[in-house]
């Protein structure tokens, strides 16, 4: 079993569109949507849900009884979740349990809460695990790890798990790349795209994951595209392809299809080339 995570650092670079295109090209693949915050892959892959499970990812501190207001809980809470009146502010509570641990009156209870729903589904390209996070819950690395674990349970020896990661460099991103065989960063040739790519590549490097790059919409700004290529060359990060800007990406999305299914455009042809290189990169062990 191999695992590939597609990430982007910056949002909106086309990560999910590209992941969906890979879905229609990959053989023996399982899809894990780990962008639980913006789970858009389902709009293209249209999963038919086979099984649904509530996910209990965190807890919250609750005080239902009156107490002496000694202030110990407030003192130990590192997340400013307890106000002067010793009321617990639920949206700020991280559920660590430190307050309940120190309360001399046993007035605080830790209540588990359902933080999301995890689905096992089937799609026209293969099995898919996806999840939906309840609003405001921890952008949970834990939920991402859970989705990945469920995908791994479905995988046989020769299978490939394709993971759609989330934007940024924080907790969910780290959880979506730890232990995978390769990461593909979808970069965009803009000032911000370059900066965000650099940061996310550093995260991959920090955790020792082989990383590669694909430049999307390279013709928006050829100069920045060159800068990305130069940067990658000096860092020894392979650029596996450059994709042109094309309206068919949005049109395919509106049709609920992958770019590959929707048209035989230049974009589709380039996507196929990138996919071949990704497969080689994976086989070479990143």
């Amino acid at each position, binding site marked *: 079993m191999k695992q590939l995570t597609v990430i982007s650092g910056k949002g909106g670079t086309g990560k999910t569109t590209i992941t969906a295109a890979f879905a229609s090209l990959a053989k023996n693949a399982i899809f894990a949507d780990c962008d639980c*915050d913006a789970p858009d892959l389902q709009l293209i892959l249209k999963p038919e849900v086979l099984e649904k499970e509530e996910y209990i990812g965190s*807890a919250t501190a609750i005080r239902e009884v009156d107490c002496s207001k000694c202030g110990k809980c407030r003192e130990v809470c590192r997340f400013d979740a307890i106000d002067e009146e010793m009321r617990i502010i639920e949206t*700020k509570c991280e559920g660590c349990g430190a307050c309940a641990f120190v309360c001399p009156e046993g007035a605080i209870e830790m209540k588990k809460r359902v933080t999301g729903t995890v689905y096992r589904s089937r799609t026209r390209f293969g099995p898919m695990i996806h999840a939906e996070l309840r*609003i405001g819950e921890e952008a949970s690395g834990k939920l991402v790890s859970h989705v990945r674990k469920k995908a791994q349970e479905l995988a046989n020896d020769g299978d490939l798990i394709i993971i759609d990661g989330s934007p940024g460099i924080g*907790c969910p991103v780290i959880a979506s790349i730890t232990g995978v065989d390769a990461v593909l960063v979808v970069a965009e040739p803009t*000032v911000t795209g370059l900066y965000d790519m650099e940061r996310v590549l*550093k995260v991959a490097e920090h955790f020792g994951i082989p990383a590669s790059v694909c430049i999307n919409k390279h013709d928006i*700004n050829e100069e920045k595209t060159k800068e990305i290529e130069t940067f990658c060359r000096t860092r020894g990060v392979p650029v596996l392809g450059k994709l042109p800007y094309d309206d068919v990406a*949005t049109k395919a*999305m509106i049709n609920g299809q992958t770019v590959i299914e929707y048209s035989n455009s230049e974009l589709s042809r380039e996507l196929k080339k990138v996919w071949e290189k990704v497969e080689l990169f994976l086989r070479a062990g990143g």
Partner: protein
Amino acid sequence: MKIAVASGKGGTGKTTVAVNLALSLGNVQLLDCDVEEPDCQHFLDLNLEDVEVVKSFLPVIDAEKCNLCGRCAELCHWNAIVVTPQKATVFPELCHGCGLCARACPQGAISEKGKVIGKIQRGKSGEVEFYQGVLTVGEPLSPPVIRAVKKKAKEDRITIIDAPPGNACPAVATVEETDFCILVTEPTPFGLHDLKFSIRMVNELGVPHAVIVNRAGIGDNRVEDYCEREGIPILMSIPNDRKIAHLYSQGIPFVKKMPEWKDKFVMLYDKIIRIMEEVA
């Protein structure tokens, strides 16, 4: 007056809106709370200076004192400590620095060391007073850095806040306790799908809000139709214009080259004030 600019998915133009709005209004504060990828800086002429470091704690286990009882691992909400018959190990990338393990260890074997998880930087671009948070690469936890940036907001100023994408805890930490939230989206299936999540978030937080449609013309009318049905005001539509896209790619705020947009952003602020008065 704090106005957050948020978006359910990344790359919809949140930063563009925040920066252009701040520059159009002039004498305001701009806070970049997208601390994982702080991008406003690329659109402003700034001399950034570090003004603060944000710290968290990391437990250190003294193997001499530890008797491998496993209490710390059992209590840690994030499974950041694993105790085997040989050894107790902390996984820093999972640790949230809550301090519970150190408090609870019966042997007093756990101490804590401070670790830097991010920094706050300040700069000035014309009349705009700018602050940003930068999360250290490899650190998982952005809300403490976000909250530190938000503390820079001055009550008597107009403060524009660029929020991180999504609807999870980083976005909530940014949008909570603001006066208004602009939700930026794209007229595409992905855009609408993610906008619906954002609207649930702002409703739960009780923050008045409205929508800006960016790259108008790229997709279809589903976002407009949805907003009309739900009675959510659309403040502005920014067209899918190659010139705007190209300026963006070079890090140039488009109000600088297309001054007619300045008035539109000033009017947008007036609309926000009116909506807020209606809500109140």
